[in-house]
């Protein structure tokens, strides 16, 4: 390689490394804010702010869904299955994928009593796609899915 090209290559690689390092630093500084939602432990542990618009996520606890027979009001509990859980109240139409054990993200406000008033409910799904027959077969010994994938 001739010296001219070698110099150009060095300059270009420095440029690339510089861009990479600065973006990494920005992302590290923003780290918490890039997360799309607060996990249950943050909601229960008081890290999530009270009284402002936030998003929180968790799995719908089995047997916790309570629908009002007169209106669209619904309440349920979001859990991380390792001890942290919080109640959610919502009024509106739930997404098709909403069901017990499903990963759910709610947008709204957390009040002083630790109840989450949701204005929007989003369903999260994982990458484990499966035909219905196979899902029925493996339903008995299905391993607990981790649709929120937070093992940190």
């Amino acid at each position, binding site marked *: 390689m001739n010296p001219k090209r070698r110099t150009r290559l060095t300059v270009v690689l420095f440029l690339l490394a510089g861009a990479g390092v600065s973006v990494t630093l920005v992302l590290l500084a923003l780290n918490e804010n890039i997360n799309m939602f607060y996990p249950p432990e943050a909601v229960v542990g008081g890290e999530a702010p009270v009284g402002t618009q936030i998003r929180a996520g968790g799995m719908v606890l089995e047997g916790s869904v309570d629908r009002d027979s007169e209106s669209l009001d619904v309440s349920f509990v979001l859990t991380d299955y390792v001890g942290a859980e919080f109640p959610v109240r919502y009024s509106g139409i739930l997404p*098709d994928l909403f069901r017990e054990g499903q990963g759910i993200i709610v947008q709204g406000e957390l009040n002083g009593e630790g109840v989450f008033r949701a204005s929007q409910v989003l369903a999260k799904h994982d990458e484990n796609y499966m*035909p219905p027959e196979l899902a029925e077969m493996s339903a008995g010994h299905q391993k607990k899915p981790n649709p929120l994938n937070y093992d940190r």
Partner: protein
Amino acid sequence: MTVTETLKRWWHQLGSPRWFYEISGPWQTGFAVLALLLLAIGTVWGLAIAPMDYQQGNSFRIIYVHVPTAIVSQTVYMLMGAAGLVLLVWRMKLADMVLAAAVPFGMSMTALALFTGAVWGKPTWGAWWVWDARTTSMLVLLFLYFGLYALRQAIPRNEAAGRACAVLALVGTVNIPIIKYSVDWWLTLHQPATFKLTEAPSMPPEMWLPLLLNVLGIYCFFAANLIGRLKLTILERESGTRWVRELIAGRSP
């Protein structure tokens, strides 16, 4: 001839647009035929024959368009980054042409990936759009493509435009690992990757095989499209040279 000598010769030949123009015809046809076959089989198989998902039902099938377009849009960008590096260091004419010719395809695929993602998101997530790390970094990729397209139009001189685009393409590659790992580094609504290099896909073969065919098919489509655009760019930029004038004179009576 040793391997290094062959590689060296090939590298020098790549520097000649005329050589590329003359050898690339059959390659374009080959890739186009392959793309047509793979995409036809993969799409019919995925949309009509493959089983539906146990949770999402038939709306899952949009994966057969969404994943290939999303993957190829990132690969095209990486290729442009590499072309930018070659242009800046070796000043190879063909690299500048690749940088210009790949933009429209990559831009369309990014837009298509975002669009199919929105269409998929509405029935499954319950929203057309959310600002999570994956969707936002993908939107940044679309804006990078817009930027490259606009920059090329804004500078009239080819050489200056080429170098400016090369720098933008190269710096923009920083976004690619962010897109790829966004679903692992942060909490997102978007699910983790469908295809991983280190693990088997987490769905049965009758679901991922058609998807694989479509991914390969879209790569062939890109190759055919790129070669076609490159040939046009070569004719346009080399229109003053003797071989192009002779080629055109020989063809038109």
